[in-house]
């Protein structure tokens, strides 16, 4: 059942359908571009995550789509029609705000029926709709309570029901899980994902949490300083970062800077200090002597104690911190002043317990070396 609806999300949309951001730019003041020339197409039924550190422009982008911020330049098209100049109440989008923004003086049911009421839907009909939406989030028994009498997770669900009842074309979520504690956040993101599958609705979700983005998104848009750095599915973002910004922000990537010392078809060698890193860079335009930055995932690094580093893709390093995380052990090591990370299976923890200060050999395979765009 899950696969079926998942497949429903992927076929290419008819031309013009979906949301199109064209050269979207928002300038605050003279030379501060919060959002800088963002181009993006989002299909109906797609779950897209805007991911990036705070101040990267992801929330501003979302607010421009929702009509809460006017773009300085560019256009926003939904199914071929521009949304520019339309106030939020005239747009077929609705937003779940970070702090839920419930109306404190209204009951849960009155909060949910607010949208239909504004549309002039008669009382009985809109109450029925609101109860239906509350059923969808499992909160019908709480209909007559005030928001202040609910837990954070319940308030979050009221906020969801309140926008779902509007039957929007696109649901915008601004850090929707930011106010919840960790355990609830983990459960709610699964709920959000399931809900989106069930409704087949376009979700645009803003977060700074990498794991959350990987968990919920069909596609992830990594933003940095107002620009899109990479747009790809979660697997690609996690395993094949395009550039240093993405590799750094996603975390647990080992980044080496150096120069190309050999180029032989797709195969390249990069000299970085004492280390020689060999990898594959099919179709990349580079040549010997040029600067290069490569990235190797922490989980692709193999760690051996009492071994010598003799060839390429092998280096010696000193263990700084051993961090046990249950399913895995994170080894923070340093080599030639570089701080590196390696992840090994959790059952190897006894082997590494109290080994801080000892020397280990790190090695990796050619295919795990990713040449980054400068």
């Amino acid at each position, binding site marked *: 059942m899950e696969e079926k609806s998942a497949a429903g999300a992927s076929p290419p949309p008819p031309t013009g359908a979906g949301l199109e951001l064209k050269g979207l730019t928002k300038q605050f003041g003279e030379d501060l571009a919060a959002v800088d020339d963002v181009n993006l197409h989002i299909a109906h039924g797609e779950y897209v995550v805007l991911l990036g550190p705070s101040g990267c422009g992801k929330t501003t982008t979302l607010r421009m789509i929702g009509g*809460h911020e006017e773009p300085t330049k560019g256009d926003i098209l939904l199914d071929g029609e521009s949304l520019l100049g339309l106030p*939020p109440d005239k747009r077929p989008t609705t937003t779940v*705000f970070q702090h839920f923004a419930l109306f404190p003086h209204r009951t849960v049911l009155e909060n949910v029926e607010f949208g239909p009421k*504004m549309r002039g839907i008669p009382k009985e009909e809109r109450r029925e709709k609101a109860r239906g939406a509350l059923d*969808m989030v*499992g909160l019908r028994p709480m209909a007559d309570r005030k928001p202040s009498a609910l837990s954070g997770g319940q308030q979050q669900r009221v906020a969801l029901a*309140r926008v779902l009842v*509007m039957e929007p074309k696109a649901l915008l979520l601004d850090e929707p899980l930011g106010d919840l504690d960790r355990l609830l956040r983990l459960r709610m993101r699964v709920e959000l994902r399931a*809900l989106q599958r*069930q409704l087949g609705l376009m979700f645009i979700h803003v977060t700074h949490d990498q794991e959350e983005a990987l968990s919920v998104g069909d596609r992830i848009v990594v933003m940095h300083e107002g620009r899109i750095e990479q747009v790809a599915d979660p697997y690609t973002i996690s395993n094949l970062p395009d550039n240093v910004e993405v590799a750094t922000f996603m975390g647990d990537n080992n980044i080496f800077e150096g120069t190309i010392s050999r180029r032989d078809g797709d195969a390249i060698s990069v000299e970085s200090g004492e280390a020689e890193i060999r990898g594959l860079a099919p179709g990349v335009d580079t040549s010997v002597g040029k600067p290069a930055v490569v990235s190797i995932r922490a989980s692709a690094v193999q760690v051996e104690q009492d071994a010598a580093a003799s060839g390429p893709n092998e280096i010696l390093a000193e263990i700084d911190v051993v961090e046990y995380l249950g399913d895995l052990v994170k080894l923070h090591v340093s080599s030639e002043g570089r701080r590196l990370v390696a992840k090994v299976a959790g059952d190897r923890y006894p082997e590494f317990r109290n080994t801080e200060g000892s020397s280990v050999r790190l090695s990796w395979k050619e295919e795990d070396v990713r040449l980054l765009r400068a």
Partner: protein
Amino acid sequence: MSGSSGPEGRPAGLHVDEIVQAEQVVGEEAALGEKGGAEARGRRGGLTTAAWVTPGALWLLFFVFAPVAMIVLVSFWTRTVSGFDPIWTLENYDFLFSSNVYWDQLWNSFWHSLVIVGLALVLGFPVAYFLAICVTSLRYQIALFIIALAPFWTSYLIRAVAWIPMMGRQGALNTALLELGLISEPLDVLLFSDFAVTVAMLQLYILFMVAPIFFMLAQIDRSSLEAARDLGANAFQSFREVILPQSAPGIVIGSIFVFILTMGEFATVRIIGGGTVSSVGTIVQTQVASVQFPQAAASAVFLVLAMIIGVFVLLRFSNLREEL
């Protein structure tokens, strides 16, 4: 949590039931904790409770109940040349009920106060709205609020008297109107009239309306206004549905302030109204001035009753206990 992946056949989607249940359990535990706490407090005895209640109770006793009780008591005593003797009599009330002037005046003052409440609301709400909602910088908000408070740095009497050179026959306003050629004769209605008293009282008391509304409006979460717009409310609807209900407690408190303060007014009426305007307050004051304390007390009793009725009417517009 492994069970939450769910058996087949379950609708794709929410596993909320168990989460809701889990949260309810937490809630119930919290409720149980409160109950346990209440019992513990009970065991510790009423002594702590009494200690907490005493200061407030004493305050109320000395500043509210004792003076009112005194007024009621004196209203049933007998007048003498130099004051009163504690001899029970209904004479003061007999006199009151045989006097149409008093009841007309009470009724007039009641309405006059309500009119001032209405005007203060109409003129004060936009000011509070501007300060709390339109001014987004906290610095400017505080600065402007202090400027609005500035007239209160001078004494109430001076502010009242200041209206005389403003509104008098040869006052600033008449002179300006004459100079502009808008009138050919100085307007007498500007001073020593009902109009003058209303304007002066409005200026003297409007801040009691602005301040509570301002504080309520300032507490409104701006993102709930954005949410209202997002959910299809236009600017007017989001004002009516979100801002107005949330400022209701401020409106009611402000109205009570202005109503109580203007209902018992006599100083402004004397200064600005001259001899031409009177109120219940001036009646009571005249009686006090002529050493008719029991009579003044009886008049005051019905003034207080009228105030209480007014306050109850105003309280019907908002459930203060729940919404504050």
